[in-house]
């Protein structure tokens, strides 16, 4: 089966490594509250407005790039895992993939609706941060769960 947007299968391993490493370090940095001291470097910004001080427009500023690295790792890893070819890529696997995507979007927004109604202030800011990753994370886990479930036994 031909699909235009799928990466070759060989990328899957590197995808999993990035994805899992990103998720674990993300959780750690959230729980342990690493904030802005690690990996501070000069970065180029198109626009950023800090709480204290001036806003920057097309400027070089100093920033801890730890959170950027973690976010990139989760997103790039997740995209690779979700959108690289399976061992055998056929119409059934394709259907599982699209079903999981639909499931992830619905699930994600149901949870978001709930949090919009019942979570407020700075906690909601945390919800927004998690929400950057939940569609991808739910999709990847749902897809792999469905694949395992449909494995069955060969008789």
């Amino acid at each position: 089966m031909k699909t235009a947007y799928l990466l070759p299968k060989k990328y899957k391993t590197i995808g999993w490594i990035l994805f899992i490493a990103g998720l674990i370090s993300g959780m750690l940095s959230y729980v342990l509250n690493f904030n802005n001291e690690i990996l501070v470097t000069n970065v180029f910004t198109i626009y950023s407005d800090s709480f204290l001080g001036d806003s920057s427009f097309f400027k070089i500023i100093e920033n801890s790039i730890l959170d950027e690295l973690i976010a990139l790792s989760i997103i790039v890893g997740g995209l690779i895992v979700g959108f690289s070819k399976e061992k055998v890529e056929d119409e059934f696997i394709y259907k599982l993939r699209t079903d999981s995507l639909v499931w992830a979007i619905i699930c994600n927004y149901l949870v978001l609706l709930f949090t919009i109604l019942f979570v407020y202030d700075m906690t909601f800011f945390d919800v927004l941060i998690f929400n950057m990753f939940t569609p991808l994370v739910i999709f990847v886990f749902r897809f792999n769960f469905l694949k395992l479930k449909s494995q069955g036994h060969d008789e």
Partner: protein
Amino acid sequence: MTNNLKVERAIHDMTQADLAEKIGVSRQSINAMEKNKYVPSTVLALKIAKLFNRPLEAIFFLEDTD
């Protein structure tokens, strides 16, 4: 839609993996079809019928709910 894939497989003495390999799909697909959890595309159905050398209607059947 239902099918008698399992019977045809038994007649030809094939495992799910054998059948999957012969028509170039994953074993999950065969498993899902046999459990009536997946309706194959026309192309895939025709491939299976051709492999077993049977008309399509001898392997796949419409159900009342279809």
